[in-house]
């Protein structure tokens, strides 16, 4: 399984490892290729053909998705893409911003209710969303945050806070305290130590946490469709969901939309893969 040895492993082992990984990658990629095939096939039918490669290639589905216009004849896709990016970025900023101080307090300070609040954060992950939709709508209406991308981002960020806090706390735990203690001795206050010493060191965890919040917002559609009442305020997943009808689904356009929606996330994963490995602790204590 694992060989810690410094010397080169036998060629047989290398070949076996590659074979295993190639099989794993094939299993992982097969369904993804299928989505790509449906997106490139100029038909709205769901493909049942086991081959993951398209027989006829056309960009029509992509053109359809990109070319949607609103009642005023203005391009909608780019506007909705911008909405999605804004909401997801604000969600990341709020999610990380609201949770980083809490995570730091939970990692470094002893206070009454600390364990209970760590638990409480986990517990909120257990609320089934089904029961919360209508109360949430009423609440946002009362607060005047309906139909606002900020309101949507606020809701998303609160759903991502528990994971963010857990993950950041796990990472803060691994940062040696000596650095901060030295700074505190020198007369710096907590806030300064936190912002100038701890946060820069926690960069990988901040990146992962932000990515996670970003994804929470990026893929959600039920809340977005319920809370937004302007087609120009929709986020991309809502638009994507329009291709899934009561009676039938326009698979080609849906797949093309799914590909377009997935590309930015995949790009982020690709860019952040180093941080992903370093910064994902999920509350665990490493090493």
């Amino acid at each position: 399984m694992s060989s810690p040895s410094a010397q080169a492993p036998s060629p047989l082992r290398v070949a076996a490892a590659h074979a295993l990984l190639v099989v794993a990658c094939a299993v992982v990629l097969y369904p993804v290729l299928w989505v790509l095939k449906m997106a490139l096939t100029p038909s709205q039918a769901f493909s049942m053909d086991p081959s993951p490669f398209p027989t006829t290639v056309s960009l029509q589905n992509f053109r359809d998705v990109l070319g949607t216009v609103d009642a005023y004849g203005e391009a909608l896709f780019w506007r909705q893409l911008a909405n999605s990016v804004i909401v997801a970025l604000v969600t990341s900023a709020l999610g990380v911003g609201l949770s980083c101080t809490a995570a730091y307090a939970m990692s470094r300070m002893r206070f009454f209710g600390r364990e209970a609040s760590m638990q409480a954060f986990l517990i909120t992950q257990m609320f089934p969303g089904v029961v919360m939709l209508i109360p949430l709508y009423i609440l946002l209406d009362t607060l005047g945050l309906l139909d606002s991308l900020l309101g949507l981002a606020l809701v998303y960020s609160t759903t991502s806070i528990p994971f963010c806090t857990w993950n950041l706390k796990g990472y803060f735990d691994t940062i040696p305290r000596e650095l901060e203690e030295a700074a505190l001795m020198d007369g710096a206050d907590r806030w300064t130590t936190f912002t100038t010493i701890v946060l820069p060191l926690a960069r990988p965890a901040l990146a992962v946490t932000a990515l996670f919040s970003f994804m929470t917002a990026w893929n959600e559609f039920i809340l977005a469709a319920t809370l937004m009442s302007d087609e120009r305020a929709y986020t991309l997943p809502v638009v994507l969901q329009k291709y899934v009808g009561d009676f039938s689904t326009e698979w080609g356009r849906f797949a093309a939309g799914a590909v377009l929606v997935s590309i930015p996330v995949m790009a982020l994963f690709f860019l952040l893969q180093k941080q992903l490995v370093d910064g994902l602790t999920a509350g665990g204590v490493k090493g």
Partner: protein
Amino acid sequence: MPSPRARRARAPHPRAPLLGLALLAVGARPAAAAPVELKLWHAYRGQEEAALEAAVDAWDEAHPDVVVLTLSIPPDALKTKFEAAAPRGNGPDLVISAHERVGAWADASLIAPWPSDGAGLHPAALEALRRDGALYGLPLATKSLALFVNTALVPVAPRSTDEIAALVGTLPPGVFPLAYQATDAYFHAPWMHGFGGGVQDGDQMRLDRPENAAALGFARGLLEAGLLPEEPTGALVTQLFNEGLAATVINGPWFLGEIDPKVNFVVAPLPVISAVGKPAAPYLTVEGLILSAHAAQPALAAALGAHLTSPAEAVRRAVQGRQTVATLAAYDDPAVAQDAVLQAFRTQMDAAVPMPNGVEMGATWEPSARALRRVMRGAESPEAALVLAQKELEFFNKPPPPAADPTPWLVLLGLGLVAALIVGLRAARRDRALLVAGAGAYAWVAPAFLSMGLLVLAPFVVGAGVSLFAHHNGAWTFVGLRNFIDILLSRDWPITSSFSFYATLVVTILWTASNVLLHVGIGVALAMLLREPWLKLRGFYRVLLIVPWAVPNYITALIWKGMFHRQFGAINGLLVALGLEPVSWFSRFSTAFAANLVTNTWMGFPFMMVVTLGALQAIPRDLEQAAEVDGASAWQRFRHVILPLLQPALLPAVVLGSVWTFNMFNIIYLVSGGEPDGGTEILISEAYRWAFSRGNRYGYASAYAVLIFGVLLLYSRATDRLLARQQVG
């Protein structure tokens, strides 16, 4: 091409930008001389949406003082959104919806009777929109099933089921005479009505009628005679028709967009059932233009309705939007009269049965579908299947229990709060030192706590409060803990039934445990491989292996469902290539469960892999080398050196992962859909069904949600101990 509406003044956005965050407040358009606004919500897309917009544009031209604001909403979200917005005064004046929601909306006083009588519209379509004698909305268009015939295989459309059966000998090998979604109750309904059956007997909802049993037997006979393909999903039916492997298909107008342009076909009314000499009669679904009870401009809305259903606009919607419009005069227009497809659906309209529009109708689908599937699988006789279906239906539509007196509950609640306060205060007193010393920490946690308290906790408490009520036909009754008692004592079902809380709980635990085991097992194994320094292309493999994490789970669930298809799925294709027997994945619990499990494992292992990769970096290699020098085997080194060091990082990830998996609704709902017979449902998908497809029993569903929460709370208490012990040890 600029739409004429571009010239119109744009409506100012209803909400002002908050706190100067102007960037975030969308659509703050310049306000004009404030024309009257008329809001219209719909779920149309593509050409239907374009035709509606054109019709609205024509109205706008003639009414410069009125602005019609249309909003297209995904069909899945339209119902919830309307129900949330209308009572708060944020709803539209008009909503275009399938008529099956009219009953629930009228009962809840969300919609108002239409002010005119709908003269000139098809009587069956008007009938569909009536509730207690009142007309709720104008029918714009109808949808029903009809027969699609591949004319290359069958030059003349068959007029009877015997003619379809007679195709067997004449078609090329491998071509099915008929394909339709035989295990879907909506697609089975034409046979049911043709045999003289239905879901109602007089005023009563009745599924166990002898006519319905005859129809089930007939459908089973079609399958046994080899006329139909197995497990006919919508995707399969489309594929067979497009490849010339199905001579005829029963489907609706939406199918037109899925037919390959190379296929020559005609649309014909459904055939006569030869055994009884009556035509098969599909359900008629009506898209009604419905007036909100909170409409600000009912008279204007009615005028817009008259415009949209006028013959001229109906012709436009028929020609441009390909809609089977309900305006009778439209079919005399030359452009429509020559359109064979529209005429076929028009003819079918006369022989269709308007779907009942009450909530009790919504509750028939699941029992009917379960009975249908059992019969089609050959697991049960039609009569026995329908007896069970009737029992299920009666339970779903059960009237609410008598109202309970809230006083004792309020007292109990008050006492509970006082007790909680006392316990809290005592704990605070005991830890007084910590409270004082840690006072500064509260400022640090406050932002997270306040926002979560407001936007997560408060909605949950309100939602959970619903569990103390029963919802029936739009009316709420306070019932105290009755819902919980019914569920926990399994009063209505034997404890082994798939409707029982405990049976579902066992499945859910099995589901969670096996998932987490596989996620961690595969994740750790791959991470161990990927950390080897001698492995080339490590980064490449790593990126590919986290791809499932980045794809929206909605679409992967549907892809996997297709791959598990009995006759045409890729997985059975692979099994056959390996010389194995193909498996009917969704007809047995074990295989349906496995299908769900494989899908969710595909999605879930990358998270564990990445967590493990990170944790492995922190484990010094020299420990392992020392163990190797001592002669430990690879497995021993993993088991005794690496695993103990991984544990602190993995355990919290496992806790989090199991909570997510416990509530993983999408996979269950989209892959197995609970098949067979609800056996693979988990608690969260049951809660969903109680709320939305079993007579809108919101209270009961909310009680389920509270119980799910309780179960997870117990679980987290247990793991908390484990975590604490680990931190000490």
